[in-house]
């Protein structure tokens, strides 16, 4: 329609009547866009870092247990019961799922560690030294020594445990643990490595043995395991993948429970949800501030053009036509700002994603909800956040134009012409 083109033309040219003001307003919106995308990106980076550190270190993203193993962690409740299961077939069955990257078996027990005169209670964790590094980073946290060799009666302890025991690499450590047959198993293990995960609860309490060595100590046959730890492509997809795996394994004879990290570490999941929700609030605050800036600028512009609006009314423009020119200015301003925002945001986003900012010289790491957070500011980006931010910016500029547009329609023509 002829009118529409006229209103767009008037809106476009009006924007450029005061270039500096338009450029400042557009810059405000563009930097608002940058801020919103970066805040979400940094927050996403922290979330991914938390999830990765919370899952990749030891938890894994999905775990499979006997259906009655959790929460008591009774040593007798192994997958497949007392008979156990064919480990290779079971693991292969799990890894046959498309979204499962790797899986590793584990056995758990509790016991006492003695070295010289010192004795400490410990959580014993039997891992497959070959498979475990594919699902967690625990074995990579060795600060001295080497990893385990299965069948060699070797042991890894956390640095704080080693300190409490007064043990050093090469020392012999006596491990005493209740066995599944009711007896008390004990054996001599050589300390071959010391771990430092940065999480005191692990470094003080956990002791790693090779899976067959712990099974032997606890009088459990090779088919008996307590847990299969699974890693998947994207930790955020874990609940969905766990659901699919649960359905897939429900066909088997083994009554198992499949849990995602969100089930196993609800406090971490809640923290992630909280951060996710805080994005929304931060973005609303950023665009809210931008909206007031735009509305203020457009109100000033509207006030300056009262006489022009009155002339347009006198010439036969309906009030809605006047309002449209102002809203169209908002839309054009939004588009300009969006283009400028995208042009400044994307290079920064990609650069930051590829070169996370290392703050280790300024602050040390800390643990949040049981997950270690490294002081590295990384940015994660998805297609979703910039699109949502773009829509936010666009809506902001339109909503910010609404009140000035309404005011413009209310300009009394005779009074404005007399001004």
């Amino acid at each position: 329609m002829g009118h529409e083109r006229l209103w767009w033309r008037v809106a476009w040219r009006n924007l450029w009547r005061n270039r500096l003001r338009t450029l400042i307003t557009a810059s405000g919106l563009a930097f608002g866009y940058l801020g919103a995308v970066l805040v979400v990106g940094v927050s996403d980076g922290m979330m991914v870092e938390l999830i990765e550190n919370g899952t990749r270190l030891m938890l894994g993203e999905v775990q499979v247990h006997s259906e009655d193993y959790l929460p008591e962690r009774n040593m007798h409740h192994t997958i497949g019961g007392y008979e156990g299961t064919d480990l290779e077939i079971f693991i292969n069955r799990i890894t046959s799922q498309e979204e499962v990257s790797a899986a590793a078996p584990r056995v758990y027990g509790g016991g006492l560690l003695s070295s010289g005169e010192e004795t400490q209670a410990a959580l014993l964790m039997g891992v497959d030294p070959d498979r475990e590094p594919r699902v967690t980073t625990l074995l990579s946290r060795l600060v001295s020594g080497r990893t385990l060799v299965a069948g060699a009666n070797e042991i890894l302890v956390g640095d704080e445990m080693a300190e409490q025991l007064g043990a050093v690499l090469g020392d012999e450590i006596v491990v005493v643990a209740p066995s599944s047959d009711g007896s008390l198993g004990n054996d001599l293990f050589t300390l071959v490595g010391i771990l430092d995960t940065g999480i005191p609860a692990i470094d003080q309490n956990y002791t790693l043995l090779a899976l067959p060595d712990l099974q032997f100590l606890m009088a459990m046959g090779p088919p008996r395991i307590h847990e299969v730890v699974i890693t998947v492509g994207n930790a955020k997809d874990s609940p969905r993948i766990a659901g699919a795996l649960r359905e897939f394994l429900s066909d088997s004879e083994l009554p198992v429970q499949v849990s995602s990290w969100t089930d196993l570490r609800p406090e971490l999941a809640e923290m992630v949800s909280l951060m996710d929700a805080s994005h929304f609030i931060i973005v609303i605050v950023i665009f809210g501030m931008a909206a007031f800036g735009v509305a203020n600028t457009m109100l000033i512009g509207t006030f300056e053009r009262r006489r022009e609006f009155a002339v347009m009314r006198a010439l036969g423009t309906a009030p809605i036509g006047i309002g449209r020119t102002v809203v169209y200015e908002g839309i054009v301003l939004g588009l300009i700002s969006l283009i400028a925002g995208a042009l400044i945001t994307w290079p920064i986003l990609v650069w930051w994603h590829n070169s996370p900012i290392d703050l280790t010289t300024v602050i040390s790491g800390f643990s949040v909800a049981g997950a270690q957070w490294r002081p590295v500011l990384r940015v994660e980006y998805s297609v979703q956040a910039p699109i949502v931010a773009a829509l936010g910016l666009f809506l902001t500029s339109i909503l910010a134009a609404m009140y000035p547009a309404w005011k413009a329609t209310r300009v009394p023509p005779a009074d404005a012409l007399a001004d």
Partner: protein
Amino acid sequence: MKTAVRTTNLWKIYPQEPDPVEAVQGISTEIETGDFVAMAGPSGSGKTTMLNMIGGLTRPSRGQIWIGDREITEMSDKDLAQLRLERIGFVFQSYNLLPVLTALENAEFTLLLSGIPKDERRKKVLELFNKIGLSGLEDRKPGKLSGGQQQRVAVARAVVANPALILADEPTANLDSKASADLLDVMERLNQDHGTTFLFSTHDPRVMERSRRLITLVDGQIESDERRNHLSVSP
């Protein structure tokens, strides 16, 4: 002769402390179609208020206004806008061209609002520009035109859609005598050629002299209403 404008007992009272201002006090008058009428009077006599009420830009406190056969005082803002678009053209003292549009775009503004196709719009405006001495200035923005040129563009904008009534508020106030004479020539020619009714508010003796009817207002009332019998377009 048909009536272009009729007002009956028209009042405009501005609420103001301590006493309301009675800008127009019960004016009843008729203006015939095709007439060339000047409304004169000192500042504050109610000339501009009368024009604004007749043009539907402000509502009377009391009384009625007919434009042709339509009573406008109860019309909605939207209907008034449509009525102005179809029947009324405005010429203002300070030209009031839209600064972001070129001379041609300003002149074709009402045609555009009426949905006239581009070719037809351009043809009409260019013919009119040619007639009133604006050829070659089509692409200039108002800031690049002289006062006289701007006022001629404003007149072109007012008359291009052939409205029945042109309301001109002090159209020559900011022009020198030559530009004023030229503008009056243009308006008289349009009045004669198209039968367009002109109603001016003015202080300018040159406008009064060339009007066919002179209504003089004082303190919001008609002091005199005289018909004049000459009409002279400058050679």
